[in-house]
């Protein structure tokens, strides 16, 4: 009875608990963040600070969803928008002149869509 119970517990850990722990750990390494507020921008240089400031300014004026967030959530949302914008490549097609606002609003839309996902 006891060995069977131990085997069942071991199987549960092997198939369910460990893969989940590994995925969380991998995600944390990949994005350099713990659950909750991001902090990866704190040691960024000035140009990246400006890049983040541009995002915040565009979110304030062009993204109503941002206004519905608390202060802490706004901080997190701006960081996510920043990360998504950095991680995507945007191409203007058929002579479309791509501006910062296009990249920011598209990135913010994706950030809103994936708001509750750890892996965004």
């Amino acid at each position, binding site marked *: 009875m006891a060995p069977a119970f131990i085997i069942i517990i071991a199987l549960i850990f092997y198939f369910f608990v460990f893969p989940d722990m590994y995925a969380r750990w991998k995600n944390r390494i990949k994005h350099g963040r713990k659950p909750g507020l991001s902090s990866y921008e704190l040691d960024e240089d000035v140009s990246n600070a400006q890049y983040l400031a541009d995002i915040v300014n565009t979110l304030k004026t062009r993204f109503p969803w941002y206004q519905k967030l608390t202060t802490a959530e706004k901080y997190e949302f701006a960081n996510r928008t920043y990360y998504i914008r950095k991680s995507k490549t945007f*191409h203007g097609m058929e002579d479309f002149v791509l501006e910062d606002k296009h990249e920011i609003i598209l990135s913010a839309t994706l950030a*809103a*869509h994936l708001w509750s996902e750890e892996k*965004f």
Partner: protein
Amino acid sequence: MPSFELIHIYPSTFHSKLLEQEVKGLTLGNGRIFISWQHFEEGHEDDDDKLHVGLHEFAHAMMIEYQHFQYVSPWKKWRYIGERMMTEIRTQETHFFRKYGATNIHEMWAVTVETFFEQPKEFRTQHPDFYYATVAMLNQDPCARMEILETI
């Protein structure tokens, strides 16, 4: 969504060789999203018309990213209700969800995501079970958020 690295933005509708027609947006399994900025902006400016090409294409991308949700546990319930909705849309003259949602389960998912973000309260009132199935899928509840903010 790390698999989707490239976002192509067209000024307006564009021709899809794959579909052989003019389209407002397109998401491909090779990690590319194509969007008409004109239609994206129209949907973005009017934030409660249940039309948003950006949310629509990102919903498709999410579905591809997560392997058509085959390992996402709330999907089974969502799909069951979604297919019921598709039948309703096909048979009823007017419906809360637009006709395009009845095309297939992929479009139903994308149309639902648009509605979820643009008219969450109406969605919850008219189809509460489907709303909460979508909450489970996206792991967020816009109505609850709005209610909390209204009390502050």
